[in-house]
């Protein structure tokens, strides 16, 4: 469904990505793990068109998308929840969610999606008319996942959804990701520093070190892999 081939990227002559190739099949949840600065967000920004790769290609459902604009890529069905949530702080929860549906036009379908999102995250119903900036971190994270779902994505990109969120809510968000993948048949590319959580809820994973993919495989296998345990799971059992 999604295929990155030999992606290279650098900022001001500093290499961020070296020959990165990643693949995601329809229906999968794929995790991308790695330390801070490994290049995970850069990959997502390239997939969404916010950054253009210096070389390499990105194909989505057989079409090259690496020259398309971010809004065209959203139209194609790829939607990202960015790192640090990035809510529209002075807009109500309602308006934030409606912004998610910006690329769609059918009012009744948008209404259906809105009902689904509010059902999935009931807290958003309670906060419906509040400014998004006044929500807690966990509530904001649910809102931006809901906002992305409002676009009815085929592929959902999540950049560190557990970052700065209370542990109890991390479990809730992990559960929501599994459900979105299973029930709504949305493919998911999950970027996480919380490697244990990411490996538990994904089918396959890529582990990155400074700009390139070091190890990849089935998530269940990687959880048992000694190299992964040492480098990504803090050596715990």
């Amino acid at each position, binding site marked *: 469904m999604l295929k990155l081939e030999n992606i290279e990227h650098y900022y001001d002559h500093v290499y961020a990505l070296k020959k990165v190739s990643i693949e995601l099949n329809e229906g999968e949840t794929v995790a991308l793990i790695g330390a801070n600065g490994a290049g995970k967000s850069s990959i997502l920004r390239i997939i*969404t068109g*916010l950054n253009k790769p210096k070389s390499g290609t990105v194909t989505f459902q057989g079409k090259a998308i690496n020259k398309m604009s971010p809004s065209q890529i*959203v139209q194609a069905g790829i939607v990202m929840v960015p790192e640090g949530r*990035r*809510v529209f702080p002075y807009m109500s929860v309602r*308006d934030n969610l409606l912004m998610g549906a*910006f*690329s769609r036009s059918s009012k009744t379908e948008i209404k259906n999606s809105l009902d689904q999102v509010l059902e999935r995250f009931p807290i958003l119903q309670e906060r419906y008319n509040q400014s998004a900036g006044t929500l807690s971190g966990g509530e904001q994270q649910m809102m931006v996942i809901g*906002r992305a779902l409002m*676009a009815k994505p085929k592929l959902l990109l999540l950049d560190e959804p557990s970052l700065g969120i209370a542990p109890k809510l991390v479990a809730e968000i992990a559960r929501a990701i599994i459900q979105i993948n299973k029930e709504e048949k949305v493919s998911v590319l999950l970027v996480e520093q919380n490697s244990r959580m990411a490996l538990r809820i994904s089918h396959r994973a890529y582990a990155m070190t400074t700009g390139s993919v070091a190890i990849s495989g089935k998530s269940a296998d990687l959880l048992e892999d000694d190299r992964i345990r040492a480098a990504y799971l803090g050596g715990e059992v």
Partner: protein
Amino acid sequence: MEQILVNGAYLGAQYALIALGLTLIFALMNVMNFAHGQMYVLGGFVTYTIYGQLGMPYALALFVTAITLAVVGAVVEKFLFRPVIKRSQRDESTMLLAAGLGFFLDAVILLVFGEKQRGVPKLINGVFNWDFRVIMPYDRILIFALAVACIIGFMLFMQYSKTGRALRALAQDRDAAQLMGVDVDRYGMTGFALGAMLAGIVGGLLVTITGVNLGMGGPTSTKAFMMVMIGGAGVIPGAIFGGLILGFMESILLSTLASYGDITYLVIFVSLMIFLAIRPNGLMGKPWG
């Protein structure tokens, strides 16, 4: 006293409309449009030509003015500001560009319309007189009402339309808005067109009261900039407050300081400096990138 307040409200409504356009452009593009006053003057001259010269209905003149300035705004964004923003890392570049555009529009207005003060026939005759406490010509009341209607219309548009929501989203988080599918080029252009249109509409409104001349551009840009600084750059209610505050200050100080000579603007500038030293972000300035 009532008279001063009524004058203040009248001035403030026009000013608020000018400031709204300027703050919209700033919020969306991070561009301080120093040519805003010239756009206002251009709007005045378009209305003058269609209503005053050609004798067409005023409503039509105002409509054509709005469209003309929207087109000017769109063209200026697409061919001047957008390429400069794409290539330059520094805010100074767009400031220079805006200032240069102001001089350019001044020159165009001089060539096309000349340097003379121009007026148009009165819209309606007669004067409203409440016991000699408030005296207000009917045409001023009409222009005041039109300005208020435009402000309300603009706010409703920003709050409830899909385009308005996209513009707000773009101002609050550019990347996130793009990730929702907002085309930055298209909506940047829309916002610039809207901002220029608001400036033009005020020109078209005020030409019926005070007339229009080439020299009004620069000072109007400065005033618009001040209002936005008072209210807080990039914030819609801030622009409205800034406009009203400047309108009332002008009206109150002009009458109370009249006996001390022409010092109204000196007092306004000094108070603005002190105010900004205390609140650099203005009344409701939020750190909108």
